[in-house]
């Protein structure tokens, strides 16, 4: 049986930092063959398979229909599993997924505050940012404080944490004074090591450099 050619991917999204930063990093770290398409929006909304973005299209190589996936975290997990960036051990995988969901919840809340949510949401946001930093730092200490969440190399959560901070720094709520500076001051050395590892990774460097205004992220 002949081996099938490696898949090629098309990713549909807006041309922004956005929630798909982890997907971009996963594709780069996987050395996947991918292109990004930025459909006219909302004109092309109804021609998207799900009326929403992001959409990942894995081109079929055998005449079967292309595989299409939406929902950013589902896309992330699909790629992370496929390319070995999520531990195969169920418990370690669940720990990573849990951290990712927390990042996403805080990202969503940050966006809600940016869109006008009031004091109660701001307080909750401040609390959750603190918990997020604490929790991620704890996991990093358990892994030996080597700048990686799992083992001694880049995994899903290293990339998604980078993507999370970049997202909230790129789209901060203006109603919270010094939002970005305050978060930067709360970052622990353990987390800073992870971000530095992501930023210096040979496969990710070019992408990091393409947005110099966000490099270094904790600068």
């Amino acid at each position, binding site marked *: 049986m002949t081996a099938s050619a490696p898949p090629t991917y098309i990713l549909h999204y807006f041309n922004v930092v956005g929630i798909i930063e982890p997907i971009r990093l996963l594709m780069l770290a996987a050395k996947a063959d991918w292109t990004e398409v930025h459909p006219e929006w909302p004109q092309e909304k109804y021609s998207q398979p*799900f*009326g929403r973005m992001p959409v990942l299209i894995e081109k079929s190589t055998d005449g079967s229909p292309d595989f299409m996936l939406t*929902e950013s975290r589902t896309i992330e997990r*699909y790629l992370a599993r496929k390319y070995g960036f999520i531990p195969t051990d169920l418990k370690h995988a*669940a720990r990573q*997924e849990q951290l990712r969901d927390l990042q996403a*919840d805080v990202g969503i809340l940050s966006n809600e505050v940016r869109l006008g949510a009031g004091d109660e949401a701001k307080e909750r946001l401040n609390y*959750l940012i603190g*918990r997020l930093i604490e*929790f991620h730092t704890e996991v990093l200490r358990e892994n030996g404080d080597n700048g990686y969440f799992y083992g001694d190399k880049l995994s899903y959560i290293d990339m998604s944490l980078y993507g999370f901070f970049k997202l909230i720094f790129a789209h901060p709520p203006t109603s919270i004074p010094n939002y970005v500076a305050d978060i930067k001051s709360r970052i622990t050395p353990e987390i800073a090591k992870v971000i530095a590892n992501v930023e210096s990774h040979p496969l990710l460097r070019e992408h990091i450099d393409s947005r110099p205004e966000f490099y270094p992220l904790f600068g």
Partner: protein
Amino acid sequence: MFPSEKPSYIFKYFAVPGIGEATRLLLTAAKVNWVEENPEWPQEKPNQPFGRLPVLIEKGTGDGPDFVICESAAIERYVARKYGLMPSEPKEASRQEQLREQIFDIVNISYAAAKGAEGFKARFDELLAKLKEVLAMELKNNGSNGHFTGDKLTYIDIIIYSFFKFFIFNLKAYAPEYVDVVVGLATPDVVKLILAVKADPCLQSRVANDDQYFPFLA
């Protein structure tokens, strides 16, 4: 002393259907020993890993430490994968996970929509219409046999079932004007799925009295 062979679980949540219902059903379908705790709230908030519920504790077998996990979707996927309820084929598993997230996008947006926030209401309506379309198409493509994938109970069957169960219940409390449109999502194939879950022998201890949650079964 022999260590217990199968882990046992403590599921912490509020004493309501809610987003925890799917995990209750998954644990039941997995046929593991599990108990529920309903922590005093908000007193117990600081004692939870992220200050929120649900939390699942897997009691260590032998001398191992407990495994604690939060975030409802991560809990669900852990239990589903561990106990063979998630399709093993990665693309099919992703399709199920995708639908779970689409369903929860609707749940999450319903709060803002219920408060009358204009943009959110339109989005909520749009997502509901899309979900109805997706459910109808997927169930038909699988042969209208009461299951989303193949011919037996898998993860997303339980998610779909618990969505209708808790969401209609919750909407009656904070947005009764939306109950009808959600009930309208229960097309004949969806009803077939709900009845199949409800009839599943391994779920009887949890679902026997569930008719009250499904107006469209009356």
